[in-house]
């Protein structure tokens, strides 16, 4: 039993991380309940962004900035190419794929693989995900 007044920082971090994970997961259907996914990789990646209309606005700005990438296949290849396991990573469950993409976004920033959209400093991966949203 946890002492209410004696909660250690470590205990709290574990607890809050668990709560955070449940928050993240609440928007997705547990994989064991899901119907086999027949969507394309582009649709699947774009669907990970819940705020689709916002993603489309950023995506449109990115594609104006990088018109040579304005094809679904290019964007999927570029995004998958940055993930551990490459295209194989796209077969991961949603939560796992989110974690891979989040790691890649962090890595983009760490290595300044960024793009400037109307002054905003954005990671290449998040910009490309938005580009997918704009095209789907």
């Amino acid at each position, binding site marked *: 039993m946890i002492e209410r007044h004696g909660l250690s920082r470590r205990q709290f*971090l574990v*607890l809050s991380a668990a709560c*955070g994970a449940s928050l*993240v997961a609440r928007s997705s259907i547990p994989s064991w309940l899901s119907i086999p996914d027949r969507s394309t990789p582009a649709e699947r990646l774009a669907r990970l962004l819940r*705020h689709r209309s*916002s993603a489309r606005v950023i995506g449109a700005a990115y594609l104006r900035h990088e018109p040579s990438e304005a094809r679904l296949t290019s964007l999927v290849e570029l995004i998958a190419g940055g993930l551990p396991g490459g295209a194989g990573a796209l077969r991961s469950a949603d939560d796992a794929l989110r974690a891979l993409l*989040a790691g890649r976004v*962090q890595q983009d920033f*760490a290595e300044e693989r960024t793009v400037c959209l109307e002054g905003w400093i954005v990671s290449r991966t998040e910009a490309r995900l938005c580009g997918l949203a704009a095209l789907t």
Partner: protein
Amino acid sequence: MIVDSRSIPHGSRIEADLCIVGAGAAGISIARRFAGTSTRVVVLESGGEAFEATTQDLSRGENVGLPYFPLDTARLRWLGGTTNHWGGICRPMDPEDFESKAWIPNSGWPIAERDLESYYEPARVMCGVSSGDWGLETWRQRDRFKPLPVRGDRLDTRIAQIVSPEARSFRITHRAGIQAARNVVLQCHANVTEIETNSEGTLATLFHVATLDGNRYTVAARQGVLAAGGIENPRILLASNRQWHEGVGNRNDLVGRFFLEHPRFVGGVLVPFDRRLSVGLYDHHKVGAVRLLGYLGLKQATRDQEQLVDVQMSLHPTLAGSFQRSAESEDMKALHALVPALRQGHIHQLGGHLARVAEDLTSWQALLIPGAPLPAPFPEVVGKLMRSTPFEAQALIPDLMGDIAARGYAKKFGAPIESILLRTRINAVPNPDSRVTLGDDRDPLGIPRVRLDWRLTSLDRHSVRRSLEVLGSEVGRAGLGRVRVMLDDHDGPWPEDLAGGWHHMGTTRMADDPRWGVVDRNCRVHGIRNLYIAGSSVFPTAGSGTPTLTIVALALRLADHLKGLLA
């Protein structure tokens, strides 16, 4: 003692060992260093012991370069000088501020930080700075606010101290010391109109003085020090052109050139994902009795690698609904004026969308990144969490974000952060075309008024942009939010809110070679055996700190040098 020069008979000639022109931070520091010695010191101060509009009008001038403060408001002509409206922010120069950098034209001092090191401590005491500790680590242990968790190999947080308001004016803090010194005579209302030299121009023989009441007299001294500020020092030298058409000390056409400021403007905005992000360290706050202010900058290694000048980035949170309550602050008024423009023009367009998309990405990211702004929780929230059902607990998650410091911030301002304006301040590139010259108009004493042509360079602009880009990457990497850079890299106009820091530097710069500087490493005017300059006009570079502490440290060093000569 303090006397009024209007009572000195017209045509008098006063003899002294040391004549100091100006009773601001530099002049008073030198005078006080001589207090109680056998040296006869005369201090000539243009103003009186209180503000007088007719005297202040002597500072009026013309701005012909980048927009700048009216010159009669940018400095003050009365006892204590510009310390009478000093903001009190202090930080000494860093050792690298003295170094020459190949990619920064005209950079480097002929002295090193170690030459000033022993003077910073007495300067701190003179200026009323509470503590001699400047390192972040010292304060990190004691400060309830923490630095942003950005990566330490590219960015660092620096700490400045703020002198308490009642201790800022040298008029208030040092008047009694001057008044009590029997060997020091401070003459108020004494305006130096000319420095006369011998026929070879190698010795300053007379300081010509005039009052606005009409009496004129001269002061002859074994040694003289100009300590009238970064605009008035070159003005007096240039206006002393009766014997030398180019003015005194100006054989290499350097007097008035290299005018430096600490240009500042809002260069970017940070939209935090966590609206309780703790940025209290970067606001004025107190640790015990010490007032502190943090700011961000690129580490020297990063600047060297990218060939940039130093840009300091201060954080100014805009807090929803809180502006009216904090409207009494001048800074907040300025920010208040900017916020609607930012909201309409910048944040609520792409920025709003970006915040929502990034929320998706960082809600995942927060679980991955050690040091991301997950949680040192509010105790009452923890208690509530422990009593709640799992479903209720989910709703408490947003309250768990942030830390105790953020709660303090919210308590102070009553609202979470909407965005954080990034105000940039540049250690600007020394530029010979940025200069003070004499204008066509004359003041009531017949002295030409000044004309200021303030200029910046493309390296200044590029350095701001890159500094913000690096900050943007670090903020993104740490999962703190996203940054927008609001300055392009082209040579277009500077932002409309461009202003200086009220710091006038560089116009009689220090260099060992007279072809590159007006004064030598001892602050002596090249070619003139007994004329010295004190104040920030001798700074070859603006530095990443604020100037006052270094002005006083240099003045005390000069005083010791003069003591050796006058012994």
